């Protein structure tokens, strides 16, 4: 299967750019901003201020490129590794941070931001994007749903059922697999015997495309096509974005146990930010000061959000009883009294 690539590894344009230079700069800035967040995430975890954190370094083009193809009111249903995509689709830093700090308010983006909280279980969320897209069609809107997932997730039965439902009902769903080479310690080759993830689409009578996931232009081009197709009522598409997880699986993982530093070094050479930077530079649309400013602005914005999130009073001891139903059931009210009795 051919792999779509528009920006070569050295940044030279070998196809048609899907955006003008201004938009390319905006997307570059988004990738830079996302990486600032990612670095902070690791640091916050080391300082004990975050629970486990799943870095996305190396996958910025896949996430920012995919979401750049969406309308602001489209749905996004991703995973624990998709903070860049979620933020790009409007999920505030505050909520992302609260989630990682272990606060349920992290799951609540503002009304109007159609992004579900990240899926922590692997595989179960793709079918939600099918249901959401289906609901939008039944309601008569032309919103679509994009779901992000990893190479490992394609092994779960729920991937299969989601793909099949989407194709049978031609729901306006776009399936974007970030094949980052690993599912914790399991390599892509050990995950499935098919040569590509993209070819799995054919099993559902669905188009499948393979793109260079570290090439923002390629990801955007393929996703945009899939989104148009979905919005036009022509059904779902599977996009495989071939990329690499530069960091360990999460801050709890010791990746040295199962992969060599050489692989990482190879993939660092294909860094998505470097690649777009080279392109912008050669087009005269990049300078170091601008990138530094972008980083600093991002850093300030995220730090401010960290302060707000950390300053937010945790839920009361009994908060959990209020979050389960629209109105706590009698049984939960009884447990609340029990809890208070125990505490007194």
């Amino acid at each position, binding site marked *: 299967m051919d792999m779509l690539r528009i920006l070569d590894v050295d940044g030279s344009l070998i196809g048609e750019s899907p955006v003008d230079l201004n938009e390319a700069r905006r997307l570059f800035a988004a990738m830079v901003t996302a990486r600032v967040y990612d670095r902070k995430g690791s640091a916050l975890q080391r300082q004990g201020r975050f629970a486990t954190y799943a870095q996305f370094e190396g996958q910025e083009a896949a996430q920012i490129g995919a979401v750049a193809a969406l309308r602001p009111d489209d749905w996004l249903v991703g995973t624990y590794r998709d903070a860049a995509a979620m933020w790009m689709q409007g999920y505030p830093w505050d909520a992302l941070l609260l989630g990682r700090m272990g606060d349920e308010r992290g799951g*609540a983006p503002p009304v109007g931001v159609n992004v579900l909280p990240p899926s922590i279980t692997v595989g179960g969320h793709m079918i939600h994007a*099918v249901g959401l897209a289906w609901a939008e069609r039944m309601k008569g809107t032309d919103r679509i749903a994009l779901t992000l997932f990893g190479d490992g997730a394609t092994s779960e039965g729920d991937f299969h059922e989601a793909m099949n*439902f989407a194709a049978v009902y031609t729901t306006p769903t776009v399936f974007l697999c970030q094949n980052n080479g690993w599912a914790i310690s399991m390599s892509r080759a050990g995950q499935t015997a098919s040569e590509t993830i993209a070819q799995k689409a054919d099993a559902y009578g669905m188009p499948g495309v393979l793109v260079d996931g570290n090439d923002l232009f390629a990801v955007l081009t393929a996703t945009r096509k899939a989104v148009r197709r979905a919005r036009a009522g022509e059904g779902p598409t599977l996009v495989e974005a071939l990329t690499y997880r530069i960091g360990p699986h999460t801050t709890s993982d010791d990746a040295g146990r199962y992969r060599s530093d050489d692989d990482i070094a190879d993939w660092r050479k294909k860094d998505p930010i470097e690649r777009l930077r080279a392109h912008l530079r050669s087009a005269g649309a990049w300078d170091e000061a601008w990138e530094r400013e972008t980083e600093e602005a991002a850093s300030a914005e995220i730090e401010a959000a960290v302060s707000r999130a950390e300053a937010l009073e945790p839920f009361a001891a009994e908060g959990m009883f209020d979050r389960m139903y629209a109105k706590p059931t009698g049984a939960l009210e009884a447990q609340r009294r029990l809890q208070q009795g125990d505490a007194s």
Partner: protein
Amino acid sequence: MTEMNMAQALNDALDVALSADDRVVLLGEDIGVTGGVFRVTDGLHERYGPRVIDTPVAESGIVGAAFGMAIGGLRPVAEIQFLGFAYPAFDQIVSHVGRIRNRSNHRFTAPLVIRIPFGGGIGAAEHHSESSEAIFVHTPGIKVVAPATPADAKGLLLAAIIDSDPVVFLEPIRVYRAIKEEVPEGHYTVPIGEAKVVREGSDVTLVSYGAMLRDAGRAADALEADGVSVELIDLRTLSPMDHQTVVGSARKTGRVVAVVEGHRTASLASEIAAVVQEQALYSLLAPVERVTGWDTVVPLRRTEHHYIPNPDRIAAAARRTLAG
């Protein structure tokens, strides 16, 4: 008012809901063109076309898609063909359906209904006789309902469909066509979370629900014939359970028999016993008796009847409480 059996009453409820609210959609295996294996959705596909959806054989997909639809603003009513086929969807129910409200601090909610025929006694093949309601009752964030009569079935299903939270709606297979009663026309609801005192009495309380309620009623008849005054409670909603009605009755009679078809250990009968002894220990004149299915697979047709509690077993248990 029309005389209806439970299958008809449920069909009527779905009809009322579909016609009242465009957001209501039905999905499940064989529910459309053929009207469901128990014909509960008979005729609805003709009437509501694309809102009554036949699906591929994929229970996790059905529940997962319905969950997405519910978040997206619809009011899906999913059907799982038999409770024994709900397990492939268990992860969706436990990990997502029951959790999205908490996960998102109320920002996203999943008001869906999952209708599932349950219980045995019809000599069916393996997996077609499950009463594993306890595992759903143990699951936070969902409500679990199990009507015993046609009129309650309709009112509870309509209540489930307008509920803001997800409801697992268990339909007793053995009752579908077994009894008829007057069922009110049009839209009405029976409140979720309220048990019903089916008959009042003072010597012993029988607590049950679903198909077992009829057998508990037969046991009550036998006991009454011997001069025992029986209070019979239909839980109707299994989660949240109406402790007040059960405990109130226990305080009055001092004797309780909990009757469930499911496996004994960690069952709803255990829960009833735990709650009653917790809140009414000093009123108890005898241990709470549990009459349950055994901790075995439900036997096949030839010996299934040795598994399912019957009026004799229920009456014997009640008599034990009276002897104590």
